[in-house]
């Protein structure tokens, strides 16, 4: 029983990290209606950036975010303008291919510079833990979770308290109408993509501390992130966060209770079951849409 509780706690903590990564992904979908299958690769890129700063300049990974987040934000804006904005017809289908190509390109470049050896960001405190009863919780997971709360909180604040946030929400609801009321949807899209990248950077740091990774690690990540945002409802930030928490808790409990072998499978089963009942996901809007 204790084990189940431990697993649940672990699930919530890692769920926070996935929530952070998924939030960027769902935001991008909401604003631009594109599925960024390269998001996993972007997280790995963020992890490598922090890794380089830590390895060569001894900068603490959480501190490195001060550098990596703005860098990734700018990179995101550039990528959106260069590769995604030009897509006119068949935008959603093509965007999948474009973002996948970007993911491959990033994987190739990372492989070129870092080879495919597994690396991990190690901070001096990464195995420090504090006890709760018989169980010990690693500090790093707590820091990661707090970081997620902070960033997600900031995003919510921006979305609901600033004018620009309002513009983003408007674009997410109805792109054409937003244009009609004078919102520069192109600028909104670019910034949203940049924000998505910045959250990927943050997610990347925690991911990089808690996992060994190499350029090929993005595949596993993206399949889970995509499942999370669909479960939560495409475009819903709140949905992505809740879905991430639910998924990770269920997965970790299954791993410990039944078998790790079926934990990943359960992930997808939950998705299928929910979609049967609610095809739009937990918090998605029921819209008639074309791809």
């Amino acid at each position: 029983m204790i084990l189940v509780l431990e697993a649940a706690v672990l699930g919530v903590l890692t769920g926070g990290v996935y929530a952070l990564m998924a939030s960027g992904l769902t935001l991008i979908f909401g604003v631009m209606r594109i599925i960024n299958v390269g998001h996993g690769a972007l997280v790995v890129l963020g992890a490598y950036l922090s890794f380089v700063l830590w390895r060569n300049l001894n900068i603490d990974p959480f501190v490195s975010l001060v550098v990596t987040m703005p860098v990734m934000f700018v990179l995101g804006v550039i990528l959106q303008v260069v590769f995604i904005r030009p897509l006119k017809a068949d935008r959603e289908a093509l965007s999948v291919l474009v973002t996948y190509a970007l993911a491959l390109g990033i994987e190739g470049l990372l492989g070129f510079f870092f080879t495919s050896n597994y690396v991990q960001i190690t901070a001096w405190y990464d195995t420090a833990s504090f006890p709760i009863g018989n169980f010990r919780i690693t500090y790093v997971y707590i820091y990661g979770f707090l970081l997620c709360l902070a960033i997600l909180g900031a995003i919510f604040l921006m979305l609901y308290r600033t004018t620009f946030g309002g513009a983003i929400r408007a674009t997410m609801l109805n792109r054409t109408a937003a244009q009609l009321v004078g919102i520069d949807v192109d600028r909104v899209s670019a910034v949203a993509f940049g924000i998505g990248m910045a959250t990927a950077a943050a997610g990347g740091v925690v991911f990089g501390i808690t996992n060994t990774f190499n350029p090929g690690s993005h595949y596993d990540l993206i399949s889970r992130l995509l499942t999370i945002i669909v479960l939560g409802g495409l475009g819903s930030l709140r949905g992505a966060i809740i879905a991430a928490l639910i998924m990770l808790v269920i997965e970790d409990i299954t791993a410990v209770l039944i078998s790790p072998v079926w934990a990943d499978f359960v992930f997808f089963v939950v998705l299928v079951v929910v979609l049967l009942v609610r095809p739009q996901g937990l918090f998605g809007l029921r819209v008639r849409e074309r791809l």
Partner: protein
Amino acid sequence: MRRALIATVAGAGLALTACGGGTATATPSPGTPITIGVSVSLTGDFSSDGPALVKGYDLWAEDVNKKGGLLGHPVTMKYVDDLSSTTQVVTNYQNLISSDHVALVFGPYSSLLTKPAATVVDRLGYAFPEPAGGAPSVFALNLHSLFFVQPAAIEDNLVSYTNWLLALPADQRPKTAAYATEDDPFTQPQIDKARKLLEAGGIQTVSYKVYPAETTDFTPLALKVASSNADAVILGTQVPDAIAFVKTFITQHYNPKTLIETAGPDQGAQYSDKLGANTEGIMVPAGWTSGSQAFNNPTFVAEYIAKYGGTAADISADSAEGYSVGQVVEQAATKAGSIDNQKLIDTLHTGTYQTVQGPMGFDSVGRPQGGVGVFVEQWQNGNAVFVYPAAVAAAQPEYPKHDWQ
């Protein structure tokens, strides 16, 4: 209509350009340079081991060329990336042999890729000495042309360790053991055999878990093992999970009396730079250690450091395995007086060959025999050394394992 026309013209053009003729291979005349082709995993799932193999092969090629080449033929190594994929590995060996007409081929990384590659190479009549495909299913292929260049078949890797454990005095011996392994043809057979032997010896199994190799988060698994409080922990891992398990044990302040992992601790710097001083006491089955005195090993280690830098502890066992493949082929060629593939195949099935992993011979399906087996290596003070059996031990086994730092 128009579209179809464009397509057919383009298609026909492409099809024609793809055509090529083929010529038969012939044994090269003395003195001519030869190429040895290898498919390595430089990208994809096995890409963390590919580069280490390349280093080993390259070092051997250099050494053999210093002596005038393989039977007088200067050697050039040709590497192609198989993307850790079946499709590519099959294509690579076909290209290497039928298009590029390399003189010889060496094997790729992992039993998974070795199997399809082996059937292709066998079909085309080449010898297939390989460093990394030793799972029981590889030998079940019944290929006469395959040779697994390691001191023992994979499934016996943990036998030395179980011997050591069971030989401990009864009051010191662990009472319980926890096992966790990837469902990989390399790791699982070892763990299953070890478990059988240890259970027969009276050590109770308190936890046994098999997990998919594709798992990304090993923490729940490690938690399960930690909560079992077993005296002995025996893990069937590769590098990423090897590290992940140890890290979780550290955070949970769980220090078993003995901990052994099937792969990871033998990968030198790739393992130690993530754990630092916490590698202390961790064991791994190894046929090779940097300190061993096996044939030419000190020279190998010195040359490796001279060429690639670092320290002896940074050298990965994969490099030694690659080097051994070269050694075996070199000796067989000398014995046969030829580099003709068929003659090499026949010769390799007889006699013993000396490598940096010790002596070895091969049975009719390529299983190694006559080797001295695989030993137990343990990290002590930042170096990995043989600790058992006593005949090769460079240090006493540290037991129980020191606590985490």
